[in-house]
């Protein structure tokens, strides 16, 4: 090595650069995806969010609907690109890419027309609309908050579509933990689900390595903890039960069990779904939960399971994610 002259060394570096450059360029050329075109629409009708016997879901990043009676059957796919979608009473919410690095929360009317858009930092994760269609909520993951440890934190926002009042982060709310006022820089919220009064809500709060079910009040700008190890709550249509993912042995590393909490008795019932469910489940009716599961290659499918612990999970919408009933 020492025999090489400086000129020869520079030659070797240049040759290596060219070689490595071609490897990178060659790989990039084969990896480059063709420009994404909106999938063709099947059926005569466009996608609408009007209440009806259809299920809303995302197919290949586009908003689509299927008939509740035949969810694996013909699918209507719109040109609207979203990573998460949810709808109720003719109001929709869509977490949509804005640039390569940023996302928008878009409020939709029943014809998928944009009513309002809020730019949000971070990567989209959860989206919900209250049963009346008035309140909208979203969660994104933000990387920069814990810059040095490369950990994530979450941002959860709420928008009142009637007044336009926006809570950009639930971390502004006053926290009561186990009956005492609480504050900590590591508090994170995610997965909001609204009650019928369009003011109170349930959500997940994490702090100090634990995750809690919290009940919140938008008008009072406060939250209080109710129970430990209850993540991504989803309130049943009658408001008596919360579907959620329960970390096995309270350790998220072991996966999650899709379960249902009875709010009156605080009793937890595990569903028949034994695969780890990392999703905020949606109630299709008073007795059925829908959720996304991913295959080994990351392809999503929508599954359903009875909420009372009976029955077996059923593959419902193949190749789709982010399910929502159209109520």
């Amino acid at each position, binding site marked *: *090595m020492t025999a*090489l002259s*400086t000129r020869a*060394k*520079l030659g*070797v*570096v240049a040759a*290596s*650069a060219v070689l*490595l*450059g071609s*490897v*990178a360029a060659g*790989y*990039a050329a084969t*990896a*480059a*995806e063709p*420009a*994404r075109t909106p999938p063709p629409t099947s059926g005569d009708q466009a996608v609408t969010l009007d209440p009806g016997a259809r299920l809303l879901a995302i197919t290949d990043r586009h908003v689509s609907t299927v008939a509740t009676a035949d969810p694996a059957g013909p699918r209507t796919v719109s040109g609207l690109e979203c*990573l998460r979608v949810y709808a109720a009473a003719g109001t929709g919410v869509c977490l949509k890419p804005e640039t*390569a*690095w*940023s996302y928008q929360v878009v409020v939709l009317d029943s014809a998928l027309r944009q009513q309002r858009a809020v*730019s*949000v*930092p*971070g*990567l989209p*994760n959860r989206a919900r609309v209250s049963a009346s269609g008035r309140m909208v909520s979203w969660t994104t*993951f*933000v*990387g*920069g*908050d*814990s*810059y*040095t*440890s*490369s*950990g*994530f934190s*979450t*941002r959860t926002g709420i928008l009142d579509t009637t007044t336009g009042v926006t809570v*950009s*982060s639930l971390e502004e709310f006053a926290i009561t933990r186990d009956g005492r006022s609480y*504050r*900590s*820089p*590591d508090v994170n919220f995610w997965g909001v689900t609204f009650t019928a009064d369009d003011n109170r809500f349930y959500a997940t709060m994490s702090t100090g390595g634990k995750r809690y079910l919290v009940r919140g009040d938008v008008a009072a700008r406060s939250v209080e903890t109710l129970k430990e190890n209850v993540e991504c709550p989803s309130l049943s249509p009658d408001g008596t039960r919360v579907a959620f993912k329960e970390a096995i042995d309270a350790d*998220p*590393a072991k996966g999650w069990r899709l379960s249902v909490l009875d709010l009156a008795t605080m009793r937890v019932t595990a569903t028949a779904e034994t695969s780890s469910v*990392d999703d905020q489940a949606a109630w299709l009716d008073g007795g059925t939960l829908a959720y996304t599961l*991913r295959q*080994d*290659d*990351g392809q*999503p499918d929508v599954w359903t399971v009875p909420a009372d612990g009976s029955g077996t999970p059923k593959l419902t919408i193949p190749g789709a994610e982010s399910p929502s009933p159209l109520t």
Partner: protein
Amino acid sequence: MYLSTVSRPVTDPPEVGPRRRRMAMVSGNVVALGTVSLITDISAEMVAAVLPLYLVLGLQLSPVAFGVLDGVHTGATALLRVVGGYAADRFRRRKLIAGIGYTLSAVAKLGLLLAGRSVPAIGAVIAVDRLGKGVRSAPRDALITLSTPPEALGRAFGVHRAMDSVGAFLGPLAAFAVLLVVGESYDAVFVTSFCVAALAVVVLVLFVRERPAGAPTDGPDDPKVSVREAFGLLRSRPTRRIVLAAALLGLATIGDGFVYLLLQRRAELDLHWFPLLAVGTSLAYLLLAAPLGVLADRIGRLPVVIGGYSALGAAYLLLAGPVDGWPLIALTLALYGAFYAATDGVLIALAGPVLPARLRTTGIALVQTGQALAYLVSSVLFGLAWQAWGPGNAIRVAAVAVAGVLVVTLLLLATPSRLVTRKVPR
């Protein structure tokens, strides 16, 4: 101006004219190491920029799953850093150990492709990457001290750290360029990042010299460094003092995340701008590293390190003070960047000559490890202080802690006057 040397990393130019001579005061080996760091940092920051996107959008992993990957490796990395430092000293193969570190990190980039959606596999790959980073820093810094006359160490580290941060700046841009070309194939970013890292290893192999001309030669007859001798390092008073001072420096630092979070709250900065806060600090660091290194050689390293602490304390006070808005952001980031520029490389420049050449890598690894572990402790403590007293009081307490550390550091390091003056024993 020092960055101009990047374009010709190897030549030791004949001394023609005063300008040339000045640049020649940074040795070819330092510029070569700086070039390796620059290229490696492009590669590392490319991946850092897209990793969250890849994990959350590409793999649809939950962030909690990602959080599980994080944080458990720090202790093991710290220990292996010292072991690697000792191995480099024992076999007098600092370049080899540094090269292994750079290679491990390069291979980890390809590992991301193979890990797929498996959380344990991704965790292992990230661990290998960090291990590589841990193993290489001490031998690299030892090589810098061994290829630089003691009176020019500040400048050498300044130039090295400035080059390093240029790479950190270019990395995200490179990642963005790749994504622009290939769409959402994060694979392509990882492969490109691997190729960039591999090029850095080539430059290291060809241009970095284990024993630069004029370096203290440990003759072939010298006995090998023993474990006992390595432990004896901590028995020497100057070494103990410098390791202790480094740990204190770590304790006084509350963590970038907290600083940016406080700044964002105080300045009511829109969250979209949040990632740019780190960019602002890096910019100040990049611009100030070389000048402050030169200043350290002129007026002494200890005063510059003390100045760095003072800048840190001032930044903390600003976060609790009356200034608001953009002036607050600009001032805080400038002070925070100045703090890093005045302490990061300069501290090693201060430590280098105190450590015996035979055990320099081990010693530098001890200094870096002490600092890193203390930093972890301080972040936890600051989190607790925030919880107990609220952010405003917590940062005031942190400022007081900095003042305390400042005094103790002065007591620790100022007594042996040879630390301050340029007459440093080898």
